[in-house]
């Protein structure tokens, strides 16, 4: 039953129950994911074998566990950032690819590969720096424009900055060594978590945990920020300042995870929509719903990416494929509902 057809109190209670169910389901998936992999045989490690084999235990603890946690965090961050972007820009079709953030990260990673030696740490730092520079440039440019409201100015500035970064990435691809550097760029752009270790995870947590905390604690304010400027102002909202705090939290978290995982598309766009169908549009419940769903979705896709074939399937390919199918499903259902109405 769609959440929108229930009366208020039942609706709140149903949304709360659904969130708890979702959380339980995610925990179960996290546990099962530990048993999925390609050791000792393809697809599944039996608990009995795990209890006996020291090598299997070490593999699960040192390789699978950090990767599973990283996939979950990646999904949570992308979905939370997507929800923030959609509500702040009052546009259900945007995600953190807006404001030059993803394009900045792609440019930074390509620059790291082509110009700065291509070490993993260099790529990650460059990706994070340029993702942030994307936000900073968009914000700075938006303030220079003399028309439209704050949201329109930011969107236009974001489009311009994204285009500049995309052309810069094009130049770097053109300059890259076609045998060594170009495949590296392409693989980074496809996204994946194959190299994640505990130290990698510990590097992103100091950024991601406070970022997600800020977004989670300010989640009801997202409803206010999704109103027009004059309404938000009349409700005492310092829209510019609050928007900036949430954007910095979202972009910093995104930059941290994207720097490790590369481009993982569609999670941020789709998961807030699925969450709205499941627990309603009020960000007080939609945001935790989107975070759980994003984590769950990225984890499932990463399980397939590392388990299905003997070689790794790039995560970005899977999230794009499944995300696009879900998107088509949502859009066609929406149309049917509107026709019925």
């Amino acid at each position, binding site marked *: 039953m769609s959440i*929108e057809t*229930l*009366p*208020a109190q039942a*609706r709140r209670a149903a949304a709360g129950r659904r969130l708890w169910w979702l959380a339980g389901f995610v925990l179960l998936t996290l546990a099962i994911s530990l048993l999925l992999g390609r050791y000792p045989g393809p697809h599944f490690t039996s608990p009995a074998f795990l209890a006996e084999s020291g090598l299997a235990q070490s593999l699960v603890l040192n390789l699978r566990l950090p990767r599973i946690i990283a996939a979950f965090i990646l999904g949570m961050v992308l979905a939370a950032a997507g929800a923030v972007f959609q*509500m702040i820009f*009052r*546009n*259900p079709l945007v995600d953190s690819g807006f404001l030059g953030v993803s394009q900045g990260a792609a440019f930074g990673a390509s620059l790291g590969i082509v110009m700065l030696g291509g070490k993993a740490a260099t790529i990650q730092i460059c990706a994070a720096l340029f993702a942030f520079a994307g936000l900073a440039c968009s914000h700075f440019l938006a303030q220079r424009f*003399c028309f439209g409201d704050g949201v329109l100015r930011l969107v236009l500035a974001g489009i311009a900055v994204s285009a500049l970064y995309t052309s810069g990435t094009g130049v770097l691809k053109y300059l890259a060594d076609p045998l060594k550097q170009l495949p590296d760029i392409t693989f980074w752009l496809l996204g994946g978590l194959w190299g994640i270790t505990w130290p990698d995870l510990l590097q992103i947590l100091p950024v991601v945990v406070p970022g997600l905390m800020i977004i989670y*604690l*300010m989640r*009801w*304010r997202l*409803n*206010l920020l*999704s*109103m*027009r*400027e*004059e*309404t938000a*102002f*009349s*409700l*005492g*909202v*310092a829209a510019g300042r*609050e928007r900036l705090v949430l954007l910095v939290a979202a972009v910093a978290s995104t930059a941290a995870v994207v720097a490790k995982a590369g481009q993982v598309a569609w999670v941020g766009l789709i998961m807030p929509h699925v969450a*709205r169908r499941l627990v*309603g*549009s*009020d960000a*007080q419940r939609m945001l935790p719903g989107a975070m759980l769903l994003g984590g769950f979705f990225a984890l499932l896709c990463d399980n397939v990416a590392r388990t299905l074939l003997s070689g790794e399937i790039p995560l970005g390919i899977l999230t794009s494929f499944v995300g696009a199918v879900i998107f088509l499903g949502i859009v066609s259902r929406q149309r049917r509902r509107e026709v019925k*109405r």
Partner: protein
Amino acid sequence: MSGKPALTIKNLSFSYASPARMVLHDIWLEIPSRAITALLGPNGSGKSTLIYLMLGLLAPQSGEILLGDRLHSCHTRQELSRLLGLVPQEEHVTFELSVLEYVLLGRAPYLNLLELPGESDRRIALQAVSTVGLTGLQDRPVSSLSGGERQLAVLARALAQEPEILLLDEPTSHLDLGNTRRILHLLRLLREGGKTILLTTHDPNLAAAVADNVILLREGRVLAAGPICSCLTAENLTVTYDVEVEVIPWRSHSLVITY
């Protein structure tokens, strides 16, 4: 105008960009408390700009605005949002918030940055929903409401703010007669409940039907301000709208006719 003013404007001038194109010139006004005041004028006369200046969304180039006895600029934004509620000309709710979830946004002035609305906020929001007569629709998405119902939801959201002064920007411009009547009836009830109401309109008949006082605005200047009976005259309206107008007494109101 009689009564202690809720809002006083002194020597206010405003332009959006170049000072050569002033939108409002040297405005002096007093908005009496616990009364309905209509800000009347043709399209582009500066009515909405004046509303947004009162709200604090725009800052005047010169002059001052007083809320009661205190300067507007001495209030924090949170204080202002507890004093002034806005019903904008158009409200766009992008995501499918229910009426109750939307009206709850009106509690924002009473919550800090990290606070969620509690049971008392919910009670006040439900009361506001009931005041505007939308109780049966409280769970429907705002986006699925008719134009009239949506305007009532916006009014309920402003009422949930519990403001002393309600600013309404063209509250009935998109509504049919039935819904216009509902809104006007509500405004009268709110005035009786002690609210100060300022609404903008380009329709003199609407002002005549609901307002106690009127301010006539043309090209950013106040042509006349005062009680309806003395200000809403054929001469004043003819100058304001630049068309021949006749004002006919009808029951306890006036009827404005143009040919």
